């Protein structure tokens, strides 16, 4: 599932990712813009998601990503592979990984890299 947490209103990147994953043979749910952490956790749970991609450009990743990860844990979904993307400063990445984000892909990453990463890290 590709989700857009928080208040930024740009999802061209998210849509490109959705399309690339679709073409790689995956079933991809796109949540649309402006999702709260609670909405994202609920959708992950109900759709029985394996991989969650969070796209964010607003700068609120330090607040929203950990909130989503906490929510997933509360629901027993800590096995979900959570990947971040968008505009995220290098210096923030260690903290996000510490919080449980598996990998962060910034601007310029090829969709092929992301697809390969997902296939290699897909939770069993």
């Amino acid at each position, binding site marked *: 599932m590709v989700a857009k947490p928080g208040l930024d209103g740009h999802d061209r990147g998210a849509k490109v990712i959705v399309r690339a994953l679709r073409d790689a043979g*995956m079933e991809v749910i796109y*949540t649309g813009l402006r999702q709260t952490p609670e909405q994202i956790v609920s959708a992950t749970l109900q759709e029985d998601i394996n991989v969650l991609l969070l796209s964010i450009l607003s700068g609120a990743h330090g607040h929203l990503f950990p909130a989503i990860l906490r929510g997933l844990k509360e629901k027993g979904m800590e096995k979900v592979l959570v990947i971040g993307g968008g505009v995220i400063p290098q210096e923030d990445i260690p903290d996000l990984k510490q919080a449980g984000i598996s990998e962060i892909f910034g601007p310029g990453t090829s969709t092929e890299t992301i697809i390969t990463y997902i296939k290699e890290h897909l939770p069993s």
Partner: protein
Amino acid sequence: MELVKEAMNGSERAIAQLITMVENEVPGWIEAMKQLYPHTGNAYLIGFTGPTGSGKSTLVDRIVLTLCNQDCNVGVIAVDPSSPFTGGALLGDRIRMGNITNKEKVFIRSLGTRGGLGGISQATSDVSKILDASGKEFILIETVGIGQDEVEIVQIVDTSIVVSVPGLGDDVQTIKAGVMEIGDIFVVNKADREGADHVATMIRTMLDLKPSANLWKQPVIKTIATKNQGVDELIAQIMSHRRHLIENDLLGAKRKERIGREVTKLLERRISQYVHDRIEGIHSLKDFVEQINNRERDPYSCVDLLLEVLEKK
């Protein structure tokens, strides 16, 4: 099975996992359905179908929100198309369901068609049973955006709603066979657009030409889903259709027909799987294809031959 018990107690995690199991036909899924089945039959199933972009998801969002505010437990199944080439799919119905994606009593599941050509996927009916057994009172099923001929939804729901929009064609479109025959309720959405009254009139005229066999006069309702206009009337008509079916002993008959079709379909699936598993071992299809392509054989005699071998086995 623990998962079935948990799902029936309303655990969202268990419901979700069970749906995945059934959709992917993970070994044990038939056993799970067997355990679950005695607890189904309580939910009322409502189908939404209509062309791409006609506003089905938005309508579902608004209807579920209203039902939710009346303290109902609601399930939503939203189907979107799978790629015939890669099997991949973009399931995007949640985008328009922002009002109901984190409501305590609402469970939404998106499904890819996975080869289903009737507007829904093979697993859709089984998924509705899981939601039914978990205690949902209403289950809304939204088909893929359809054209003229994808009418499978009518076979798995109690009330079928056909959503139209202005601007798609002339009055001949309303008298064609197929989708326009399956509505128990017709909706003209985006009714603030030019031509909405005309579409509604054309549908009414079409309906007047052949009054419904079971004395239900199919209503035509104009809605503007984005502004929540006409939604209350639509819900009232759904409830009215439900009452009509119950009071005239039609719901039971409808569901018995469904069960009959379901058993036949399930049997066909199992037979087809059985045959497929054995044929694979007997003859290489590849050789046949080569010979048929060279016109040394024909497809019809090949099937005769395969059946003969199967019977002997």
